[in-house]
């Protein structure tokens, strides 16, 4: 029952908190922080309690016998890693939002999101999964649409519609799965035969590909990420995109390994196009947050390449890169938002010489950027090298071309440093006030610490990955 409250608790709490503390805004962030800390603690408990292989059943709730309709909560290592990642990011997002306006509503929506996201990662029942999956869109829609930048409404609607249409594909696939196997639970469907694997596979793949996002379904992302307030960009990149990757691994790879291997080449090609195409888009950008957004897409292309191997090693690399991407892209988004907030401009041309005004923030920006281009000692390097190795193992030598992706990222990132961080101070920078709240800065420091910590000592994540994928039948 405790785990059920981890999902529905926040959903109710969100309403209660908003109703009670609407007029005591300052309190809400502490409530949010305490809740997210509790969720992190519960996730870590789950991590320790997991059996060596397979799922840990947390209970079945809300029976509707006629439809075989049960909210089954069960987790394996993959879900637990996602739970830890999400709750950790929620804490960091809360810290980064410390001075956000209109806090009661903002943090209530965050709390609501936390419940929905836990639902996504804890339920293996198709219907419940889908409900929570869609539920995450609601707080996100408002968070982007209310706290966003100039074109927030356009971005929020586009984001909502685009991902919602994709969800319809997933829903159709879920329906087909139920119709063909008679089961609603992933663990049961896995054992059953699917009559039209090709159709289901493509529906699921396309549905999750939008969320990931994969070329050519990526155009919602730059709009949403750019218009969202910086901490929400973090949530989008760190949690929402990971839902896509999680869904891809859980429903496409785990459920249908044979079909996945059959169509692996399409996943691989789309992943490659995404990595390079988005990289070139980032090179051409003068808008700092768009540059980060395209960089984010480019790295998710690498995740796709890793998933496309349909192998243990590839999935491990994908899981690592998902976590690495979350920690690396987050400070980049936060700092891009901060620079816009302080200088009033998105254009890199208006910036320059930031390091003279904000040396430590600049240092973290450079560190995160170096991680994004795959510098050893950071998570970026481990992610890229493991993806390279696993991809070569499956696809042969030619796939070594993905090494060039990190040359492209070096191109746009180093050039960005040159335009934004270094060089002569621009008049805009000279006249701006670069003060940053200590708590918001501490979130950046924590991100930087995580990037280096797991960059030097990646084993815990790979241990978790090994355990996560050990019970995936049919994966080599």
């Amino acid at each position, binding site marked *: 029952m405790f785990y059920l409250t981890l999902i529905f608790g926040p959903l109710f709490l969100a309403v209660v908190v908003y109703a009670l503390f609407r007029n005591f805004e300052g309190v809400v962030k502490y409530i949010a922080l305490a809740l997210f800390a509790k969720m992190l603690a519960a996730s870590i408990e789950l991590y320790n309690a997991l059996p060596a292989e397979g799922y840990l059943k947390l209970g079945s709730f809300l029976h509707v016998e006629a439809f075989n309709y049960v909210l089954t909560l069960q987790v394996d290592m993959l879900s637990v890693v996602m739970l830890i990642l999400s709750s950790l990011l929620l804490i960091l997002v809360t810290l980064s939002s410390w001075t956000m306006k209109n806090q009661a509503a903002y943090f209530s929506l965050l709390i609501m999101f936390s419940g929905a996201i836990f639902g996504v990662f804890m339920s293996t029942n198709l219907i419940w999964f889908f409900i929570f999956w869609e539920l995450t869109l609601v707080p996100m829609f408002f968070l982007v649409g209310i706290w966003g930048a100039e074109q927030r409404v356009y971005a929020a609607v586009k984001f909502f519609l685009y991902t919602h249409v994709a969800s319809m594909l997933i829903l159709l696939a879920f329906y087909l799965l139920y119709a063909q196997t008679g089961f609603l639970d992933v663990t049961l469907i896995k054992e059953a035969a699917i*009559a039209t694997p090709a159709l289901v596979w493509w529906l699921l793949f396309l549905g999750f590909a939008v969320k990931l996002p994969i070329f050519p379904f990526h155009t919602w992302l730059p709009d949403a990420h750019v218009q969202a307030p910086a901490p929400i960009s973090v949530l989008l990149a760190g949690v929402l995109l990971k839902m896509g990757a999680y869904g891809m691994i859980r429903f496409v790879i785990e459920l249908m390994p044979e079909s996945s291997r059959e169509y692996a080449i399409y996943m691989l090609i789309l992943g490659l196009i995404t990595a390079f195409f988005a990289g070139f888009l980032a090179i*051409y950008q003068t808008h700092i947050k768009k540059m980060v957004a395209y960089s984010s897409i480019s790295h998710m292309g690498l995740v796709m390449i890793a998933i496309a191997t349909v192998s243990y090693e590839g999935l491990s690399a994908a899981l690592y890169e998902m976590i690495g991407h979350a920690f690396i892209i987050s400070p980049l988004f936060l700092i891009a938002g901060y620079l816009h907030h302080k200088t009033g401009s998105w254009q890199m041309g208006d910036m320059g010489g930031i390091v003279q005004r904000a040396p430590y923030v600049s240092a973290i920006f450079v560190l995160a950027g*170096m991680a994004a281009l795959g510098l050893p000692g950071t998570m970026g390097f481990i992610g890229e090298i493991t993806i390279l*190795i696993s991809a070569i193992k499956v696809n042969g030598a030619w796939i070594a071309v993905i090494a060039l992706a990190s*040359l492209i990222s070096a191109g746009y990132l180093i050039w960005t440093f040159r335009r934004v961080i270094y060089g002569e101070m621009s008049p805009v920078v000279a006249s701006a006030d670069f003060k940053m709240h200590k708590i918001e800065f501490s979130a950046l420091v924590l991100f930087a610490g995580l990037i280096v910590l797991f960059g030097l000592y990646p084993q815990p994540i790979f241990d978790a990955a090994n355990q996560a994928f050990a019970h995936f039948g049919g994966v080599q």
Partner: protein
Amino acid sequence: MSSVTILLFWPFIGAVAAFILGKANKKMAFWAAEIVGIALFAASLMLWINYTVPISIDYTWFTFGETALPFGIYIDGLSIVMLLIATGLGLLDIHFAHDYMGEDNDQARYYAKVLFFIGGMILLVIAKDMIGMFVGWEFMGLASYLLISFWHTKSAPANAGMQAFLYTRFGDVFIFAAIGLLLYFVGTLDLVEINTMAKEGSIDHSVALVIALFIFVGAIGKSGQFPLYPWLMNAMEGPTTVSALIHGATMVNSGIYIVARLFDFYASTEALLVVANVAALSAFIGATSALVQREIKKVLAYSTMSHLSLAFVGLGVGSLAAGMTHLMNHAVFKALLFLAAGAVIFAAHHTKDLWRFGGLGKKLTLIAAVMAIGGLSLSGIPPFSGFFSKDAVLASAMVNPDTQGLVSVLATIAGLLSIAYIGRVWLLLFTGKPRDEALYESVKKPSFLWITLPLVIMALITLGLGLYQSEAAEFITGEPYVQPHVDGLLIGLFIGLGLLALIVFGLYYKGLKLTEKISNHPFLKIFHQLLFNGYYVEYMITWFSKNIIVASVAKAATWIDLHIIDAIVNGSVGLTQALFKRLKVTQTGLIGDYAGMMVAGLAALTILMILMEGA
């Protein structure tokens, strides 16, 4: 604490300490760096003194799936020589910076980065596996980026840093790819094992060739070979101490080191010949361009390129000993030359333009003397160290039937030109009449302890090193070494040509009018410009990246993204809206209509389901 632990961890701990202490007190950063520098050099010395057999430590960094990525330590003669170079010259460089960087406000940052850099170099040379090597390699790339753009508030150093990073990164991604290929095709990342396997012939020939060439592309980037050398010249925008350390003595050696470390692997394919040819061409380009530079540090940078290439030629023609001894000698005398130039620049309040100096020999006698020693060694005049190794390189090139032709000729020209460009620098600096009286008057004599002492030490090493060439070569390769010689004729030619060049350039540049005439002569001007701009390779690369990568490919991608992909998305929304408008007629508001539609819909669904069941 063992020497290895000190070498592995102290630089990074020291970097953090220097930064924190330096923020509290400027001078503390220096002392932290100096102490760590001494400890590192002492640790290297201990390794050298106690050396009997190679130290080999295996360690697994992490395992994913069934693949383990190793991170071992391997220290043999080659590593120890590289360690002594990195930590010894590093220590002298830190010592020199006490005064040279003394006025800078940001010393905490400076020394932290220098220690981080030295740590990277140490990691590179003691790593047992390709992956550890690559980590050190990239650490240095980062450190050099940060150090070149140390004075980042000006545009030029910031641009130079960016260029250095991107040029070397271009090579790095090939090494990165090579790691993946090695693991897949060879099954190991262990550098020693790769050599053994290559010797046994158990690596497929074409695989070995491709991997060797990939790694060499990385070496081209890091060691300033054709065509990725322009960053090396622009890197002179950084502090001179940085130039001495990174772009004279250590980092640029890393490309040569990796080829030397994998020497048997290279020797098993034609890759070695590619190395020889690229290097010979680079040696020629560097030497000719060095002839006409106006900025003192740029002459040295081109000369670095040229002499690194000679070391590469040594490896390329099949003589590990010749190549590595030249690398070792070059590291010492080039650090000496850079720091001596730094001393002059420092004394002259950061003036770098050669044409504004002159007659400084009277004021800076000791510096002139040590610079002469460095210059003579660079020129390959016996008995200075540079003579022996350069001689060995050229002799090995002439013996090898594959490189007797072009490679030997280009390398010999490069070797001979050394005396001309370094002689020109020395003459312009120290002889004749001051060309800028005000500058001459303002030149102050630098402190002996902090500026001149490190130079004297390096000059003494340069002098002494000539006596121990065979010992050094045997220590590095672990095999007996008989130094090859070019017949006496060439030595004579060296001295004769050298003297000739000295006289000619002495005359040329004392009267600057002649130079001006040349640079204005319609025909000679073309040559002068060609050499002065380093054969326009930088322009071509810049043009390509600006016009092809950014303004064509990236622009086209952006256009496609906006006008095709996103347009389809937005268009489909418009289409849907139009559709909804048409469908509005169905919204009659009558319950009967809705009920009818519902029945119709359900029927359609049922039919669909039946069809699917059948499928």
